[in-house]
């Protein structure tokens, strides 16, 4: 599976509030389900999401089993300077994914 879809505006004015949208590919197995023979299916979810803006954490979220597959997280921030957003997802079974997006602030 493709890993993630990211939407960050390529350009913004200084001080402008921008929307950031992220979608990570993950099946988010709750841990509450069983196979047809009654064997529990172990939990396998994304547990933590962190977004940084030029190295500084600007947003983070904890995720739980009630979150649907392919979690879509959107938030807003203030465009202060040109640079890079980095998005990190971590989860069960050593799941880790990283994506980056650049922004030019005028």
């Amino acid at each position, binding site marked *: 599976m493709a890993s993630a879809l990211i*939407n960050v505006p390529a350009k913004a004015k200084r001080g402008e509030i921008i929307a950031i*949208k992220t979608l990570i590919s993950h*099946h*988010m197995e709750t841990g509450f389900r069983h196979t047809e023979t009654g064997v529990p299916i172990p939990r396998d979810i994304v547990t933590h999401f962190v977004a940084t803006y030029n190295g500084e954490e600007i947003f983070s979220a904890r995720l739980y089993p009630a979150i649907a597959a*392919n979690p879509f997280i959107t938030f807003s921030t203030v465009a202060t300077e040109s640079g890079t957003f980095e998005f990190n997802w971590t989860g069960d079974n050593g799941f880790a994914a990283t994506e980056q997006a650049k922004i030019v602030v005028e």
Partner: protein
Amino acid sequence: MAARHGSSLAPGHERTFVRLVVMVVVALFTTTIPGLTGDIPVDKRRSTYEQMSADTKAMQDEDTANPGMLWVLDGELAWRTRTGPAGRSCADCHGEASSTMKGVAARYPAFDPKRGAPVDIEERINICRTEHQRAPALAFESNELLALSVYVARQSRGMPIESSDARLTPFISAGRDIFERRQGQLNLACVHCHNDNWGQKLAGVPIPQGHPTGYPLYRLEWQTLGSLQRRLRNCLIGMRAESYPYGAPEYVALETFLMWRARGMLMESPAVRP
């Protein structure tokens, strides 16, 4: 037959019996007349998109919010990947999908002269794989097959559905027969919901007209992408009817009929549905 059965009844009972038969016939006609209202007029047809909430619409409209795009990106990769002993990729024969596959999904299922029957996009991809790439066929509803079919379908986004091949006519009517036939323990036909009661609620959910404009599509209930055959299977299970195995000619006939029924409507793949 009725007379012979009747003759075994006493005269008084016979009259009651006839009256009963008349009542049943009248009841049958009055209850099935709504089922005979026929096709939805062309100008009254609408995509299920129009019945969705603003949030779900926004999810479909924006590529970075539409989870179906994950499969489209995968499909693009698979399109360029050489596979099978023939060592060929889809792109080696078909080139750039953005031009060669434009409008293709909008006219599928298409008639295959070699098989003498229509094939849908999924089947066409597997025919290509087994005959030209000499690779094993992909399983129905596997991520690999969904990715390739949604990548192809995506190239037709915004284009009108076409159904003009005369060779499809017998399959369209075979599909219509299934669509109009009562089946399952609930004794329902597809028409009862999708022609006669669209827009009403079923268990709190609006009943759609059932136009296959957005397949393969991401269904929030499934939490994944699925094909039109999966959706049809879903409906059959809901009617408590026996579903067909994936790839069955009945499904392809239904798909062919549904695309004819939705002719002229615009493709939305990958759509998002609740």
